[in-house]
C-alpha cells in the first residue's frame, strides 16, 4: 500500500517539482536545468493569471449550489417523509450517477447554436439565437450550471444525513412552543446544520475548479478567450496540448504549494480552536 502511495502520489509530487526546473517539451529527451525560468514564463503569460482568477470565480459561483440550495432541498424532503420524498430523493441524486461526459454532450446538443433546443425556446419569446458556449458572458454560466447539478445532488445527500441526526429534544421543544414550520427551520434546524454547511462550503471553495474539469474539457476547452479556463485545465492544456512540460509542471507545483499552505493553515486553525 505504502509503496503504491509513494510511487504514484508522492513520487509524482516531487517529480513535478523537479520537472518544473527543466526545459522539456515531452517529445524529446529532457533538456537542461533552467532554474526558475519556467516559473518566470508561467507568471509572465496572461493566460495563467486569468486561469487563476477564473478558478476563484468558479469557487464563488458554485458556493450556493453546494450549501444553501442542497440544504433547502434536504430540509423540504425531510419535512414530509413518505413515498413521494423517497422518489424525489432518488431523482435528485441521479446527476451523481450519470457519466459526466454523457451529461456534457447532452447539454452541448441542447445548446447547439444552429438549431439547438435552447435557442428555439428563447426564439419563441422573440429573443435572437445565442452562441451559448461561444459567448464569454454565457459560457461561464453554462459551465457553472452544468456542474452545479452534480454538486447539489451530492451535498443534498450529506445534508439529509445530517438532518437525521438532529437533536430531537430541540424539535419537541419547538413544537411545544407552537413554533411555525419556518421558525423551527430557521432557529432550530439550520443552526444545527452549521458544521455541515461550513465543511461543505470550504470543500466547495477548494474543489470547485476540479469539479468543472470534465465539463470545461467537453464543452468549451477553456474558451472563449479563456473565461471558462482554470488552473487545473491550464495544467492539462500546457502539458498535453502545447507539450510545455516545464511550464505545466511549474503550474502544477504552484497549485500543490497552494494546497500545502492551505492544509497547513487549516490544521493550524483546528489546533487553535481545539485549545480554546
Amino acid at each position, binding site marked *: 500500500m505504502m509503496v503504491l*502511495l509513494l510511487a504514484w502520489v508522492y513520487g509524482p509530487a516531487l517529480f513535478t517539482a523537479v520537472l518544473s526546473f527543466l526545459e522539456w517539451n515531452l517529445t524529446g529527451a529532457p533538456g537542461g536545468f533552467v532554474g526558475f525560468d519556467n516559473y518566470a514564463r508561467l507568471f509572465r503569460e496572461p493566460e495563467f493569471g486569468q486561469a487563476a482568477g477564473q478558478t476563484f470565480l468558479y469557487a464563488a459561483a458554485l458556493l450556493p449550489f453546494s450549501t444553501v440550495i442542497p440544504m433547502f432541498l434536504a430540509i423540504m424532503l425531510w419535512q414530509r417523509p413518505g413515498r413521494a420524498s423517497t422518489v424525489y430523493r432518488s431523482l435528485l441524486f441521479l446527476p451523481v450517477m450519470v457519466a459526466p461526459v454523457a451529461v456534457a454532450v447532452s447539454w*452541448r446538443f*441542447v445548446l447547439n447554436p444552429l438549431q439547438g*433546443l435552447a435557442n428555439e425556446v428563447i426564439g419563441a419569446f422573440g429573443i435572437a439565437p445565442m452562441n451559448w458556449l461561444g459567448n464569454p458572458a454565457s459560457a461561464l454560466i453554462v459551465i457553472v450550471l452544468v456542474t452545479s447539478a452534480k454538486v447539489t445532488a451530492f451535498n443534498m445527500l450529506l445534508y439529509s444525513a445530517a438532518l437525521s441526526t438532529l437533536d430531537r429534544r430541540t424539535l419537541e421543544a419547538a413544537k411545544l412552543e407552537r413554533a411555525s*414550520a419556518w421558525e423551527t427551520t430557521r432557529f432550530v434546524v439550520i443552526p444545527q446544520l452549521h458544521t455541515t454547511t461550513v465543511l461543505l462550503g470550504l470543500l466547495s471553495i477548494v474543489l470547485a475548479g476540479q469539479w468543472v474539469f470534465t465539463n470545461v474539457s467537453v464543452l468549451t476547452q477553456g474558451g472563449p478567450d479563456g473565461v471558462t479556463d482554470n488552473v487545473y485545465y491550464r495544467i492539462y492544456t500546457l502539458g498535453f496540448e502545447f507539450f510545455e512540460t516545464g511550464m505545466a509542471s511549474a503550474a502544477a*507545483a504552484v497549485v500543490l504549494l497552494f494546497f500545502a499552505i492551505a492544509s497547513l493553515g487549516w490544521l493550524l486553525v483546528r489546533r487553535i480552536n481545539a485549545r480554546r
Partner: protein
Amino acid sequence: MRAADTTLATRPRRGLGGIAWHLVLAGVSLAMIFPVLWGILTSFKPANEIYSLSPLPAAPTLDNYAHALTEWPVGLLVGNTFVMAAGVAIGQLLIAILGAFALAYFTPRARPLVLTLLTISLAMPPQALIIPQFLMTAKLDWLNTDLGLIVPQLGSSALAVLLLLQHVDGMPVSLLNAARLDGAKPWESLWHIVLPALRPAIAAVTILVFITTWNDYLWPLLVAPRQIDTTVQIGLRQFETAEGTNFGGLLAAATLTSLPILAVYLVASRRITDAFLQSGIK
C-alpha cells in the same frame, strides 16, 4: 428514511403547502435531469427530426442505436471500461483491506505518520500530478493498455483505506484480543473475524470505486487515447468529426453506455446512496 432518529411527530408540521412542495421538488428534479432526458428522447429520433421541438419522436427509430453498435467499437470500449473499473475497484479493495487490517491489528509505531500521509494524498488535486504520472506510465510502456489504466489509479486508494480503517477501528477490541489469546494467527483473525464484520463496508467501497472509475474522464483521456483501447467516456469523442458532430449516434451511444450504471442504481439506489454517503462523511 431513518424514521427512528426523528419520529414523525417531532418534525414541524407542514412546511410549504402540499402543491408548492411538489412543484418545487419536481421542478428542481426535472431541471437537473432535463438535458439527459432530452438526450435520451432525441436518440430515438430519425435524422430529419433531430432538432424538432416535440419531446417524443413522430417516427421513433433505432437507427441511431444501430449506428452506434456497428460504426462504434462499443463492445471493445465497454469491455475496456469494465476491466478498468473492476480492476481499480478490486485492487483498491485488496489494498484497503490489508492496509486497514495491518494498521488496526498491529498498530505499528508509524501509524500516525501513515495516516497523515494518506490524508494529505486525499487533498492533492489529481490534475497537479498528471504530468509525472503520464511520463511514468509511458516509460513503463503501459500507454493504451489495461495496466496503464489500472495500476496508477491504485495509488489513490487512500479514501478506501481510511473508510475501512474506520470500521476496523470500530470493532470491539475484545473480539480480536480473544482471538489472539486463542492462538489465532493474524490472517485467521482477518479471515474469520474482520472480513465478515466488514462485509457491508466492503460492498460500499466497491460500489463507490467502481462507479467513480467507470465515469472517470481525465486519466483514460491521457493514457489511452487510441480509439479501440480507450474507455466509453473518451470513445464518445469519436462521434465528432471534421464534418460536424453526429448527435443522433452520439446521444444513442451516451445512453447505451450510461445504462449499466443507471440500471444498477434503479435496483439498489438505497445501497448506492449509502455508499456515497460514507465517502462524504469521512
